[in-house]
């Protein structure tokens, strides 16, 4: 630079001699102006190589700063750590959800058959398919390599000699293990289920019956006391990454034998899985399957039909909700929700860092001034502060990893997962690296830019307080942003909690408390009347009936219903269930018209319908009206008030309740006296040993069963509580940092105010008011957004709460109280400090 100056001056002196002073002056000015070129003013490439020593100095400075401001550093690192742990946990959970079912070989060739039921104006999608579909598909479609039906995982009793166990498992078509690659330890995968009497069991089941998987091969198990099954193989215990869980698979033929309705192509229920041949185009098969059932079912018509289709099996776990016959979301919605939450919580923590670093930067203005004076470029300063942010983030990451290992077991417990500590997974470290650098970048960039922009002359000369009012505005907006986000979380948490509470406490239409189910086993089915008589005489037993399904999961539907005055062109779908006598009395469902099924009347072919069914049939007083279900012709004897027999996500379907004749299976429903529950349970167990000595005694409570329906909602409620708490906590850390800073900045002002007679109360309110305004502004921003978000979520439920204004009032007031409490103590400290201390320090 100085050599250019020299050149200019030399020219000038030459020109003064040659042209005179005025012209030389003008030329000088012209030359100077023409020198204003970026490349001449300063080279943009660093003209020197920053040495290692400089970076080391950056680290030293950063470390000293961290130590000098212990409070700030703790707040910073704590916020970041919490945010990171939260992000990691959610990341692991999301990853685990996405891993579901992905372990099968050729998972891209595995499909599940979907079925969309059109009946009149109604369209219902699901996975219910005809029971013979699995065997038929490979014969019809050359593209299908294997197909297998798959039933419902249920408990069944198995016996070897004296040993009897009730174990959950399933039935599946013979090619099940050719479709899915659950590891087989013993036996040949290619002919595991080839005979009707074959069963394949898990390692656990093999060990509990025979001691080892090898011992179990070719042995015989007695199924439900009447049928010998031969073990043709043993598979490794099913991993938690499989959505299908079972301890054994029995050949499908036995299922069809036990449920003759499955032979009819007009009925559906089981799931069907299939594997396509290599290179087959699934969309083509999907298209061809639509009208597949046309030639199989006599009832098939344009108005009432079951349209089959395909869904990639890998997608099924996360995308299993149907809307108007199309797959629309499912668990993926929660996965995405949590993904968003993780990002937000991390952003909150980053915002803390930004806020505190920018605030604190005022104290470091002198350092910047000196650094710039001795020649630091702005880029070097930015690098310095980014490094500082990186250092903080790294400390937080290390702490977060430690914390992660500590909380992972309880997180697993909460989410019912078995996520392993991911420390040995290279991909995990890749993610950690990405998140670390992103966090450092997001949290460090703004402070770095602000701090490095200080002009050395100004910061070295003047007091620091007059600096940069724009950064104050930014910091205030950051606090508003944090609180707005936290309040959205809190509103979400409250509404989710209320909805879940509603789900649990809603009157489902019958009394689910003190209702016990027992599976019908042994001779209970055939001698049910005697069993019932004896059981009712026991202490604590109030009423007894039976039911083919559990009241919470009736899913057996049919279109074959005829009544007087029915429009012959329509075939509305009815759900149907078989029950015993005294059904209404036992379940305490409310009867609207007519009566319960009673022993003394010959009710064997009579029906009770629910309110919705009555409306569908168009009756106002259906008592005594004839009704035909399949070939059962009878009369309607009662109308029951609608009760929920499915989850509250879906509307109550029309229901026909009929008397079960000689059912060998299903459930005994027992209403017990809560005061005598132990006696009642003992009595039930004793009865079990009399009537069905082969089977171990198991029972379920209706309310517990009901709770299981809302597992994912329960999970969302639990997690949302933690995350909302965390968000508020992190935001308060930020607020605390801000108030500490602001009190420090204004020490002199406050002291002078006190000297002039301001009371402690006035000082506290002066400091708090600023922040309260921010919280109020945050609530104004967050409430509409929160309302909209929560409405979206509630839309998933057919039966839901309304959002009350109190949710928002409560959130607003609570946030304000929390913010006040955070601010208060520090404000108080500033208010009761002796003004002399602050003023003397001049």
């Amino acid at each position, binding site marked *: 630079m100085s050599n250019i100056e*020299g050149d*200019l*001056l030399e020219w000038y*002196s030459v020109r003064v001699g040659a042209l005179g002073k005025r012209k030389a002056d003008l030329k000088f000015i012209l*030359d100077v102006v023409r020198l204003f070129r970026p490349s001449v003013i300063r080279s943009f490439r660093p003209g020197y190589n920053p040495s290692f020593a400089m970076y080391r100095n950056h680290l030293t400075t950063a470390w000293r700063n961290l130590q000098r401001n212990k409070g700030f550093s703790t707040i910073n690192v704590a916020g970041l750590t919490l945010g990171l742990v939260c992000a990691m946990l959610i990341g692991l959970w999301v990853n685990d959800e996405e891993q579901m079912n992905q372990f099968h070989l050729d998972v891209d060739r595995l499909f599940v058959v979907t079925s969309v039921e059109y009946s009149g104006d109604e369209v219902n999608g699901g996975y219910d398919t005809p029971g013979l579909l699995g065997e038929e598909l490979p014969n019809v479609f050359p593209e299908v390599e294997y197909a297998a039906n798959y039933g419902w995982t249920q408990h069944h009793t198995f016996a070897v000699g004296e040993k009897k166990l009730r174990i959950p498992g399933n039935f599946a078509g013979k090619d099940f293990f050719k479709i899915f690659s659950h590891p087989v330890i013993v036996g040949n995968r290619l002919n595991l289920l080839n005979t009707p009497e074959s069963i394949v069991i898990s390692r656990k089941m093999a060990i509990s019956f025979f001691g080892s998987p090898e011992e179990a091969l070719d042995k015989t198990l007695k199924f439900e006391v009447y049928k010998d099954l031969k073990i043709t193989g043993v598979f490794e215990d099913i991993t938690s990454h499989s959505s299908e869980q079972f301890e054994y698979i029995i050949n499908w033929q036995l299922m069809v034998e036990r449920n003759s309705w499955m032979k009819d192509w007009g009925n559906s229920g089981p799931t069907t899985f299939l594997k396509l041949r290599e290179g087959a185009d699934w969309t083509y098969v999907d298209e061809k399957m639509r009208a597949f059932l046309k030639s199989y079912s006599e009832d098939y018509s344009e108005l009432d039909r079951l349209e089959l289709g395909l869904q990639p099996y890998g997608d099924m776990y996360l995308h299993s909700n149907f809307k108007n016959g199309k797959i629309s979301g499912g668990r993926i919605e929660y996965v995405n929700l949590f993904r968003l939450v993780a990002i937000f919580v991390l952003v909150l923590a980053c915002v803390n860092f930004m806020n505190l670093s920018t605030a604190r930067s005022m104290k470091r203005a002198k350092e910047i001034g000196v650094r710039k004076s001795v020649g630091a470029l702005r880029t070097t300063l930015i690098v310095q502060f980014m490094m500082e942010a990186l250092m903080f983030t790294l400390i937080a990451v290390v702490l977060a990893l430690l914390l992660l290992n500590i909380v992972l077991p309880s997180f697993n417990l909460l989410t019912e997962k078995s996520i392993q500590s991911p420390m040995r997974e290279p991909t995990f470290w890749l993610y950690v690296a990405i998140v670390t650098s992103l966090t450092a970048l997001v949290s460090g960039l703004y402070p770095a830019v602000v701090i490095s922009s200080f002009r050395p002359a100004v910061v070295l000369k003047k007091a620091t307080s007059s600096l940069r009012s724009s950064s104050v505005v930014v910091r205030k907006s950051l606090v508003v942003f944090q609180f707005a986000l936290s309040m959205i979380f809190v509103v979400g948490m409250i509404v989710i909690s209320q909805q879940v509470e509603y789900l649990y406490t809603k009157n489902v239409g019958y009394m689910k408390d003190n209702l016990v189910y027992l599976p019908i086993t042994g001779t209970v089915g055939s001698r049910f009347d005697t069993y019932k008589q004896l059981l009712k005489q026991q202490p604590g037993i109030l009423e007894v009936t039976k039911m083919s399904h559990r009241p919470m999961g009736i899913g057996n539907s049919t279109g074959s219903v005829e009544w007087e005055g029915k429009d012959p062109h329509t075939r509305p779908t009815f759900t149907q269930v078989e029950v015993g006598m005294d059904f209404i009395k036992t379940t305490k469902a409310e009867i609207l018209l007519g009566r319960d099924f009673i022993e003394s009347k010959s009710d064997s072919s009579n029906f009770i319908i629910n309110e919705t069914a009555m409306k569908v049939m168009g009756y106002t007083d259906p008592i005594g009206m004839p009704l035909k279900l399949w070939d059962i012709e009878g009369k309607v004897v009662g109308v029951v008030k609608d009760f929920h027999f499915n989850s509250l996500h879906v509307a109550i379907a029309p229901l026909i309740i009929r008397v079960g004749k000689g059912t060998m299976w299903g459930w005994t429903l027992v209403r017990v006296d809560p005061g005598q529950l132990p006696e009642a349970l003992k009595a039930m167990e004793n009865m079990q040993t009399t009537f069905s000595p082969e089977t171990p005694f198991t029972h379920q409570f209706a309310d517990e069963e009901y709770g299981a329906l809302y597992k994912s909602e329960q999970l969302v409620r639990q997690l949302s509580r933690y995350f909302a708490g965390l968000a508020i906590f992190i935001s308060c850390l930020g607020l605390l940092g801000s108030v500490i800073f602001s009190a420090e900045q204004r020490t002199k002002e406050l002291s002078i105010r006190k000297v002039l007679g301001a009371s402690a109360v006035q000082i506290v309110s002066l400091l708090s008011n600023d922040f309260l305004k921010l919280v109020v502004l945050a609530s104004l921003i967050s409430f509409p957004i929160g309302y909209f978000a929560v409405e979206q979520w509630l839309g998933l439920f057919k039966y839901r709460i309304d959002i009350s204004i109190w949710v928002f009032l409560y959130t607003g007031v609570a946030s304000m109280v929390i913010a006040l409490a955070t601010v208060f103590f520090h404000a108080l400290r500033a208010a009761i400090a002796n003004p002399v201390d602050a003023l003397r320090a001049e």
Partner: protein
Amino acid sequence: MKKYQVGEFEEIVMLTICILQSQAYGVSIQKEIEMRLQREASMGALHSALIRLEEKGFLKSKGGESSEGREGRPRRYYEVTALGRKALDYIRKNREQLWSAIPNVAVKAKFTSF
């Protein structure tokens, strides 16, 4: 592919520095150019060219003594580096090759039309 990227003015600056040998600094270069080529070279243009050439590695510079009229500001002397010489040779060779490739008639026609 261009082997060396040298602009027209940059080439002139480098050649001038070669002429001036050890006496090449801002003012002398500028004077030399103006004298020999009868064209004005502004200081701005010259200095940005010098900086650019130094960044490219074609020039190196060292600080020197001050002299009359500079009020104590040092001169900065420029010298063409080996790479710079190579670049100049390369440009020259390219030019000559092109000239020699022009058919005689065309050259004559061009010159006669003057």
